């Protein structure tokens, strides 16, 4: 707590009715901007820390229904936060979210991996005609591809394949749902 509330702690405080404690704690933790020690809460309720802890438990059970969560910071401090279950809409609401586009290079690489998996970086480079390591890192970080094995060849290079996240991203049920390659493309991609 900040120094604002410090003086009030010494004053004799009115007692909050036991059945009101949980709700009063909700109000106190709502207006607090930082974690609050249980002893401070108990003083403001006019009860013992043990009673305050019991009331906190009751509060915690009720917070879920309103999208909130009672968070313990160590043994002695609590705060109310938005429930992580609602993190996506909350992040979006607060503008803590950004939409990024897959680059052309990333999309091309992803397409090659999707149709030719499992595939090593060397094979990719050969088909694309350029170095693919940067793009591979991006796709790995986004969870669209993953290492699926190693080629039985000198250096045993890592082979990459698409992930379940890849299927979700394109709305596919399985890899069999990928549109078939036109004949001329199928030929060209075999060559590579």
């Amino acid at each position, binding site marked *: 707590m900040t120094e604002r509330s410090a003086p009030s702690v010494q004053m004799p405080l009115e007692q909050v009715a036991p059945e009101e404690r949980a709700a009063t704690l909700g109000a106190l933790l709502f207006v607090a901007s930082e974690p609050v020690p249980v002893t401070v809460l108990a003083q403001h309720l006019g009860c013992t820390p043990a009673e305050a802890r019991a009331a906190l438990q009751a509060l915690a059970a009720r917070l879920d229904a309103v999208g909130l969560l009672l968070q313990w910071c160590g043994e002695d401090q609590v705060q109310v936060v938005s429930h992580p279950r609602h993190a996506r809409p909350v992040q979006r609401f*607060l503008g803590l*979210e950004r*939409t*990024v*586009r897959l680059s052309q290079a990333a999309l091309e690489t992803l397409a090659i991996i999707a149709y030719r998996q499992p595939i090593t970086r060397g094979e990719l480079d050969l088909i694309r005609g350029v170095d693919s390591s940067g793009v591979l890192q991006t796709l790995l970080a986004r969870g669209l591809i993953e290492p699926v094995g190693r080629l039985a060849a000198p250096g045993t290079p890592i082979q990459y394949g698409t992930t379940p996240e890849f299927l979700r*991203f*394109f709305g596919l049920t399985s890899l069999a749902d990928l549109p078939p390659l036109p004949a001329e493309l199928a030929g060209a991609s075999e060559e590579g």
Partner: protein
Amino acid sequence: MAVTVYPPLRLADCQLRLPTFEGPLDVLLRMIERSQLDITGVSLVAVTDQFLAYVAALSDVPPELLAEFTAVASRLLALKSRSLLPAPPQPIEEPEPDDLTRQLQAYQAVRAGAAYLQGREREGLRSFGRPPARLEGLPVAEHLAPVPLPALLQALWRCLSRRRPARQAYRPAPIITLAEMTRRLLARLGQRGRFRALLGDAPSRTEYLVGFIALLSLLRQRVLDATQETLFGEIEVWRIGSAAEAADD
């Protein structure tokens, strides 16, 4: 304790005698308001004089009477000034002081609201908001913009079709030497011409470069002279010296 009882004095008891009207003061006001009497023909000075004479005759003047007269007199004054002023082209809408009763009603009702608010203030029934969320330092989540499935196939197509030309046999571009280029320039230039035209139909980047260096060298040797009107514009070239010595260079 002695209690003085006043006879009920009303404005109606004040009888006026004017050239255009005879009767109680409040009737005068009513008639004027109903346009039954032209106020421009009424002397407000006379009305006031007669009221004051009436008041002076009373032993004790109740303040209510004075207040009532003031209200009626100011109403008369307003009516008269309005009748004397040129009428506006369109009537200006303004709240009629006639609304006084309604205003009082409104005021009474609002007092109930004020009392309610005061009650809540006394009981300290306040609510408090949350301090603004601190967003600095919070991670920004990145999400991929959705890509339609056909775009995947298109990407593959683009990649594979781009690869084909690269597989063609490597044919090195012919390299032209400075001496060759100098000869070419001089051969193509009659007396005067444009530098670009001297390079040919589709000069390569190398031809441009070597051609330009050849031109500079010919300028230095005073074989050619040149002008360029604008930056990056056409370069006009003309012969000023012997071609033979330049070609040997």
